[in-house]
């Protein structure tokens, strides 16, 4: 039975992908140090979370059946520290949290479950979440996105998801409610704050190391699956693609060509364009909200790795001219980004064409080999016999008998 379970439940856009990749890449080494990261594939914890929360996800959920129970069983079978991490767990209801905690052994003698949240200020989270939505085919403008977040009932798909995975006191509250009578003491809730812009590059990783007990382990950090960010013009361009292509591009093509090729490999490389930011007028409602969160988190006396003050976020510049509106970007930059995208797509098509030509050559080679094989007298005899038998009904019956004798797999489909 795992003595200590570190359950990392979010939040999205806080370096979670990087942490998960490092853990997956180093899972053998971690085990040598008494730490279990139970995963046969890099998205194992994502599938487990889908299973736990019964969340359909574009067909992927069918691969997730039973994934949570399998993961929990591995954790329970392990004698040491186990790490479970996925950011969509932030969205769990109290009932789902209770199932998760119980399955991980919470409340059983000798097992200690710790809830970990990596957290970042809303000043950066809001534009980052909008961009993530755009990369997943959303067509909502930034203004509409912001308006939906401010809508009181949170009834829309965007708002319900956003607040479910970003409202820190509520996330912790749901998980602690899930713990029920077994209780999840405040000392077992840990917040890892994402350092402000301009901080040393590896500061967040150091905080993760501290929170997850990874210090002193010589981990291979060579992963390139961290989420990448887009600029204002690039996000605008992608939204225009969504507006025109959602009806016409199948999900696998969108994933491969739009999200991977265009967004991640092409547009994200354009780092000189203005970055997405919170509109200056939005800080007015974000700031008191964040203050109320900080007050609540401080009052509960959760363990903090970093500083709760970092959740305040840097106020946008008072000069409105420095803000670049992603709903009305500099069109010259958009054209530039579009031209680069076209080049990238043309190059990709070129690679496909070269690949197709190579495959045609291989097929031609195979045809030539087949022709050579046909020169073999035994083969020619077999072919002649087959043609003869398939001409008449009685011949076909003989063939059927032959197929049955050999087994049905030899029959034509």
């Amino acid at each position, binding site marked *: 039975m795992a003595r200590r379970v570190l359950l990392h439940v979010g939040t999205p856009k806080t370096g979670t992908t990087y942490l998960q990749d490092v853990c997956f890449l180093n899972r053998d080494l971690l085990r040598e140090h008494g730490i279990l990261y139970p995963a046969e594939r890099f998205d194992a914890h994502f599938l487990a979370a*889908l299973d736990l929360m*019964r*969340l*359909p996800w574009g*067909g992927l959920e069918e691969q997730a059946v039973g994934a949570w129970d399998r993961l929990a069983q591995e954790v329970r079978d392990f004698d040491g520290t186990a790490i479970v991490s996925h950011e969509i767990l932030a969205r769990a209801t109290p009932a789902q949290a209770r199932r998760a905690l119980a399955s991980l052994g919470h409340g059983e003698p000798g097992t200690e479950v710790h809830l970990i949240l990596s957290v970042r200020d809303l000043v950066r989270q809001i534009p980052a979440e909008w961009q993530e939505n755009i990369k997943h085919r959303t067509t909502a403008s930034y203004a509409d996105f912001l308006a939906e977040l401010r809508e009181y009932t949170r009834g829309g*798909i965007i708002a319900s998801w956003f607040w479910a995975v970003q409202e820190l006191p509520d996330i912790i509250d749901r998980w602690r409610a899930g713990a029920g009578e077994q209780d999840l003491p405040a000392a077992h809730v840990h917040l890892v704050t994402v350092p402000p812009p301009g901080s040393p590059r590896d500061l967040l990783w150091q905080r993760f190391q501290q929170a997850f007990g990874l210090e002193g382990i010589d981990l291979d950090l060579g992963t390139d699956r961290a989420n990448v960010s887009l600029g204002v013009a690039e996000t605008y361009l992608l939204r225009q693609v969504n507006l025109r292509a959602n009806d016409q591009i199948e999900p696998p093509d969108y994933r491969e060509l739009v999200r991977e090729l265009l967004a991640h490999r092409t547009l994200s490389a354009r780092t000189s364009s203005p970055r997405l930011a919170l509109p200056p007028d939005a800080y007015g409602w974000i700031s008191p909200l964040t203050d109320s969160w900080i007050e609540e988190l401080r009052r509960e006396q959760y363990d903090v790795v970093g500083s709760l003050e970092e959740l305040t976020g840097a106020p946008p510049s008072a000069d409105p001219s420095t803000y670049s509106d992603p709903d009305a970007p500099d069109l010259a930059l958009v054209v530039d980004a579009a031209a680069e995208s076209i080049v990238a797509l043309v190059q990709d098509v070129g690679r496909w064409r070269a690949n197709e030509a190579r495959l045609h050559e291989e097929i031609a080679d195979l045809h030539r080999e087949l022709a050579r094989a046909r020169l073999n007298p035994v083969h020619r005899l077999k072919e002649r016999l087959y043609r003869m038998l398939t001409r008449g009904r009685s011949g076909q019956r003989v063939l059927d008998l032959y197929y049955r004798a050999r087994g049905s797999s030899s029959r034509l*489909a």
Partner: protein
Amino acid sequence: MSAPTPRATGWVAHLRAGGTTPWAAFGAEAGVSTGSTSGGSTSGVSTGSTSGGSTSAGSTSGGSTSGGSTSGAWTPGAQQLEVLRRLNELGRPGPALVERVLAADLVGRGRGDLGLVGEPQRRFGTPPVDPADLPTPELLRVVTGLLAEDVVRAGTPTPPAPRRPRWRRVRYRLHGDPWLAVPMREELTRHGYPPGGGRAVTYLIGRDLGSMLVDAWTRRALVDGAAPWPLWLKKLHRADRIPPRADLLRQARWWADRVGADRVRIVTDPALVPDILGVDMPLPAPPVLAADALELARRVSPLVGLFAGPGHREQLMRHGLLPRLAAVPGEPVGVPAPYRGWVEERAAAVHRDLLRGDYAVLGDPALVLGPPPAGVSPSERSVLVLAMRTLLENDPESRTQSVAEGA
């Protein structure tokens, strides 16, 4: 999380006992004390503020619903409670179903368990609601999850063992409109005529294009997951294309490339198939589903995939849920007026291609020109009622209203 007031626990007990009083009317009607919210007001309760677009109001109902017991110091979500209230209006849910509803997960995207307006709330979380105001899709999230569990639990009846292949082989393949072709193929196999065989002829079964579009969506909705019918049709219209499953000529080209055009036939009248194959047996026609039944199937299908795992969804949906839904009365799905002209134009193009003579056509080619089927688009409210009725019928201890009244 805040403990519920006697009003809330009283309402839960009222619903458990089969009550139908809406939450808003409950305190006053039943004379239940509203605890700290004296006089039914929400004084002292943070119900949030709309000023500045506050998102700090309210809280979830806060309680676990696992284990089936919900009688502790918390209430289930407003969604589950409202579904139970409406089930009580429709009939008499048995005790096991009552507990299942109260413990139900909210499947898919949307808000989490919601609190009841007027109850003490914390400062954070989604604002509480009056359950009567919940939009229909929120309630459908509760019911479709439970229905999908029922479908998976019930499984499928064991099909009769297929006959051994007959000595007189019929060498055929049946494709085209899968809604038509798959049941025919299964029936033929069951009677000893498996598809395939040396020099088999491929028959592509079709009918009027409008019906084939409905068929293609029906199959997707049941087996693969699909967008809602109007949206799906709108996308096709915008792209001016017909889906591969409804595109006989495209399928004919595909098969011709593999077996030769001389072994491809297009059949425009499905009733001709037994004669064409020379089999002395009727072949099944697929059921015509009511639009609401089909929409319910569309919503349940991905959840069946989620609960049952890969490779089981089609069997469970086609042989488990479909026969039940086929008995539901109602108007079928039809091609809405804005798209009828487009469907007719595309059908005329298919007709011209058939007359070109690239492939043998069995049946009158003009059959593809038939008028697009008339019908309706599904209604969310009707789908919810149907879903709840089906849930009651699935539970042996529950009764629907008509039965309950007659008792």
